[in-house]
């Protein structure tokens, strides 16, 4: 096996390197802090692998062109932050209903509105799930390190292609802008998933929205390959043609939800530490996880029996596991850089089994280990 490359890398850079490893060939976006390095690096690197980069006239055009690129068969991505993520919402719903794979990176910054453009936040957790109108499938991943940014970007592409759905990669300014030592895995260590395509012989009878029997994800043809199919953001039949039919509409929406719901075990990624004798759990994600780990280690030294849960998949929520945990652990703390978003999901799932506490911070500064530690002390 080749020796892994070791280097100092920025989170946003790792996102681009991960995308390249996953096979990205198309990027369209609009500059916005703190995600801009992703666009800059794609502009430089994509042409070198025969890929395409375009800076569009606005955020909406950025995701629209990304979806267009994906329809021609290319793995496509766009990146943005806060206000740009708001602007992209309509077309995220479009990609979900029209089942067009693409990756949307949101390097979260403090909002609402223009907010603190250069400061970290985790304020878009609920927007990632509910941002576009209507029920729709959502996959959102959030890394806690530069190396995980690399890995989860690849995962984002894999899930997107496998389930024909947009995938949201939620970075935050802490992870996006920090540089740290990373070991880049060799290509033979990386699993790459490409979208399922119909066979050419099926061109005449091709149904862009009809999965094979017993399956949920229909094979996806590319524009220009002789499959002449229709794509719309209206409710549509198996061919892709618009319909008002109640049954067809109901079945379509339920099927695209099931793509995720029936595969939560494949999609939900989390890690646990210090759990054996834990009487108290800290559940964290993204940049805040780093502070949480430091705090939990300090608490352990002080004799507190604290466990640590790292959510890498934000959506779908790791519901089953949190419910199991709440049978044993009666106090859960959720620190996050918002005024209470992911904690709502924890409360929903544990019901009254465990006591749920929240530590929120929205002043544009990271939550410190000391702050988490003193909250642990206060609660225990």
């Amino acid at each position, binding site marked *: 096996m080749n020796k892994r490359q070791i280097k100092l890398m920025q989170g946003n850079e790792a996102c681009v390197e991960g995308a390249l490893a996953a096979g990205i060939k198309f990027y369209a976006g609009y500059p916005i802090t703190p995600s801009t390095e992703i666009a800059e690096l794609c502009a430089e690197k994509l*042409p*070198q692998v025969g890929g395409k980069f*375009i800076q569009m*006239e606005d955020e909406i*055009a950025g995701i629209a*062109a990304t979806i267009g690129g994906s329809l*021609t068969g290319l793995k496509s991505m766009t990146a943005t932050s806060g206000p740009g993520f708001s602007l992209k919402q309509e*077309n995220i719903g479009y990609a979900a209903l029209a089942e067009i794979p693409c990756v949307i990176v949101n390097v979260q910054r403090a909002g609402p509105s223009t907010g603190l453009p250069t400061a970290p936040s985790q304020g878009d957790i609920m927007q990632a799930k509910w941002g576009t109108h209507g029920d729709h499938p959502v996959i959102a991943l959030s890394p806690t390190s530069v190396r995980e940014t690399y890995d989860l970007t690849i995962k984002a592409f894999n899930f997107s292609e496998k389930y024909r759905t947009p995938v949201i990669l939620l970075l935050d300014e802490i992870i996006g802008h920090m540089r740290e030592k990373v070991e880049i895995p060799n290509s033979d260590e990386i699993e790459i998933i490409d979208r399922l395509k119909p066979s050419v012989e099926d061109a005449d009878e091709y149904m862009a929205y009809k999965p094979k029997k017993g399956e949920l994800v229909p094979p996806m043809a590319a524009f220009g390959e002789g499959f*002449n199919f*229709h794509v719309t953001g209206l409710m549509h039949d198996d061919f892709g043609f618009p319909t008002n039919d109640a049954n067809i509409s109901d079945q379509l929406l339920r099927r695209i939800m099931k793509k995720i719901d029936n595969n939560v075990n494949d999609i939900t990624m989390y890690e646990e530490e210090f759990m054996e004798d834990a009487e108290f759990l800290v559940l964290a994600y993204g940049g805040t996880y780093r502070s949480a780990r430091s705090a939990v280690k300090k608490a352990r030294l002080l004799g507190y029996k604290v466990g640590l849960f790292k959510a890498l998949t934000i959506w779908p929520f790791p519901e089953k596991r949190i419910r199991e945990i709440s049978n044993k652990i009666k106090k859960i703390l959720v620190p996050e850089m918002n005024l209470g978003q992911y904690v709502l999901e924890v409360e929903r799932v544990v019901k009254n089994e465990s006591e749920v506490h929240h530590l929120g911070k929205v002043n544009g500064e990271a939550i410190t280990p000391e702050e988490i530690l003193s909250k642990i002390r206060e609660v225990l």
Partner: protein
Amino acid sequence: MNTGSQLIKNNFRVEKLPHIWCPGCGHGILMRAVTEAIENLNLDKKKVCIVSGIGCSSRAPGYMDFNTLHTTHGRALAFATGIKLAKPELKVIVITGDGDCTAIGGNHLIHAARRNIDITTIVFNNNIYGMTGGQYSPTTPKNEFGTTAPFGNIDKAFDVCKLADGAGATYVARGTAYHVKQLIKLVEKGINNKGFSLIDAISICPTYYGRKNKKGLAVDMMNYLKDNAVDVKAVKKFQKEILEDKFVIGEFKNTTEPEYTDEYNKILEKVKHLHK
């Protein structure tokens, strides 16, 4: 020249017809004209991609047997730009409406024109928002009526052709649902232009625009197009006063400038040696 039935069989998803447009609407004529231009140019159907936004006009691609994409309101050109850049061998045609193209999608129009990306845009211009029931659009003439302009429209109307010209389109023309033969030629030339082309195709909307503004029945509105369109080549012959109530059709601009995907290909050439 194609017989109608053959043209329809060759280019339409016949099983999806009839279309949803109102009796007397001009859009069906425009849609047919676009397919006739495609057929006359003998384009490979597998390589034709038709993209639309939202509105009456934007339902057209669903009936047309090509690679078809019905996007979100105003965004057809942004989606189309992605498709064209990703796969330049596709002939990308955008069908859009006056509201879709020049109001909510106005920013995408001017930037697609500025890039001179090889996309042919046909604006099905009926001077009204039809799908939502007759609100005034950026091409509703001043002082006319819409459901949201009950006391008369005080907005000045866009001249879509001048807008596209000013933004950098290299082929600009106007046709009508009445002057079909000319329109087919204009669309053909637009498609043949290697760059951004815009054809402002004047339609008629008897249901909303017509009724709101007492323009009569569909036939009367067709007669209006016939009687008031002046060909650009003939404009000089008329006195200014006579032209005041008329509108000009024909080819306004046909030039050659560097095209966006060609320019991008040059970058790909330039950095080829950096490829690991």
